[in-house]
């Protein structure tokens, strides 16, 4: 594998900087965000590189579990931050974390133990990147779906209540919205699968090929990952939508928009 120097990276950074500079006039505010995001990328990835290095040297289950939980906690915060109208109290955080935990962790365990079958199964070289990809995609699906759900419930309050008034159950009253919401959570991964290999070469596979792996082997890994991501993101979104719909209504099947608050 060809080693990258810091000079190589700063050449790439110039590109981002150039974009920020040219966007400064027309899109004020965006340039700043771009620079901050780029800096975050550098710092966060450098840190995780160091953490992974230490972790690989000392591959205890406890450490792997600890890092996984930290990743889950941060993903939960991210889901919450992306809601325009979020549930009050611990719910907006809880729904995301519980759904991601149930889906991503189950799928990761399944992949590590049944599919990859390493010894020991929690070997961090496999466990952490796998979980990271699962969590990231599941987080996106859940964040999109929840945002759409709370927004739709707010905007279509009149229709939902009109159906309740006619004696429809909450499931019936929410059926149309639910469909759209689940769809919007799954669209990114469906699109990614549809375009894979034809329009885009997925990132992980590209990485493996750049690192010198045999393309056919890299493809196999990519297919595995995409299916796992689909399962994880799909079931995670399903769980999150289910929990959120339940929370939107009370025991007398009243629409409880007072359980939502607008975030800035």
């Amino acid at each position, binding site marked *: 594998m060809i080693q990258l120097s810091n000079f190589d990276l700063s050449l790439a950074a110039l590109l981002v900087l150039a974009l920020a500079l040219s966007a400064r006039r027309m899109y004020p505010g965006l340039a700043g965000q771009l620079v901050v995001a780029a800096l975050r990328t550098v710092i966060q990835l450098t840190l995780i590189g160091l953490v992974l290095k230490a972790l690989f040297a000392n591959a205890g289950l406890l450490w792997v579990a600890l890092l996984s939980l930290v990743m889950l906690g941060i993903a939960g915060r991210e889901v919450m931050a992306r809601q325009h109208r979020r549930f009050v109290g611990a719910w907006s955080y809880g729904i995301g974390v519980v759904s991601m935990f149930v889906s991503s962790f189950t799928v990761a365990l399944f992949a590590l133990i049944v599919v990859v079958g390493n010894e020991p199964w929690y070997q961090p070289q496999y466990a952490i990147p796998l979980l990271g990809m699962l969590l990231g995609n599941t987080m996106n699906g859940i964040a999109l779906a929840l945002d759409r759900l709370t927004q739709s419930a707010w905007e279509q309050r009149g229709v939902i*209540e*009109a159906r309740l008034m*006619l004696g*429809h159950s909450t499931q019936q009253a929410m059926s149309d919205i639910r469909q759209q919401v689940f769809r919007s959570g799954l669209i990114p991964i469906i699109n990614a699968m549809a375009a894979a290999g034809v329009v885009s070469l997925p990132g992980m596979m590209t990485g493996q090929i750049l690192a010198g792996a045999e393309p056919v082997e890299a493809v196999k890994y990519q297919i595995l990952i995409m299916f796992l991501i689909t399962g994880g993101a799909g079931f995670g979104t399903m769980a999150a939508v289910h929990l959120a719909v339940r929370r939107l209504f*009370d025991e*007398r*099947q009243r629409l409880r928009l007072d359980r939502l608050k607008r975030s800035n």
Partner: protein
Amino acid sequence: MALFEVSRLSAPGLSDISFSLAAGELVCLSGPSGSGKTLLMRALADLDASSGQVCLSGTERQQIVPTQWRRQVGFLPAESRWWASLVGDHFTDQQVALERLGFEEEVREWQVERLSSGERQRLALARLLANQPLVLLLDEPTANLDPLSTQKVEQLVLDYLAENQAACLWVTHDSAQRERIAARSLQLVDGRLHEAVPA
């Protein structure tokens, strides 16, 4: 025993409301805007939480599952909402009320977005009556209608009440209408209910 009995109902904007409706009875409800008429209707339909007791045919509301309650205590809000593009998708098999309100069978194929406000209003009433509710809560059901349609709606509701031994609480600001349809009226002022003195 009254068909519909409300005692000491309270909710935000409503305090200590008690009244009852007998089978076959139509009672008008009036009051300045902001006095809580819609809030009262919503609380009775169990769309908003409220304390106190509401009984239908002697059964307490908590004993009846919410979907069943809202089918039997049917609320027609001032503005109707539609979720599908065709009128027919909002109806089950009941057509009786549709015919009575002067609609033909082909109304089912109509596009909701092309309905006039009066048609919407009358179809929303038909949609509600298709559930065969025992209590009707009508929030200004003839507000958008011409005199002829108003008369049709009034007659339909009165006939429905007589045939089904149902009761109705009808919000109106029109005193002539009040005299035409109701023997008794209630007035809501600042969230409190008063028996209106017959004019």
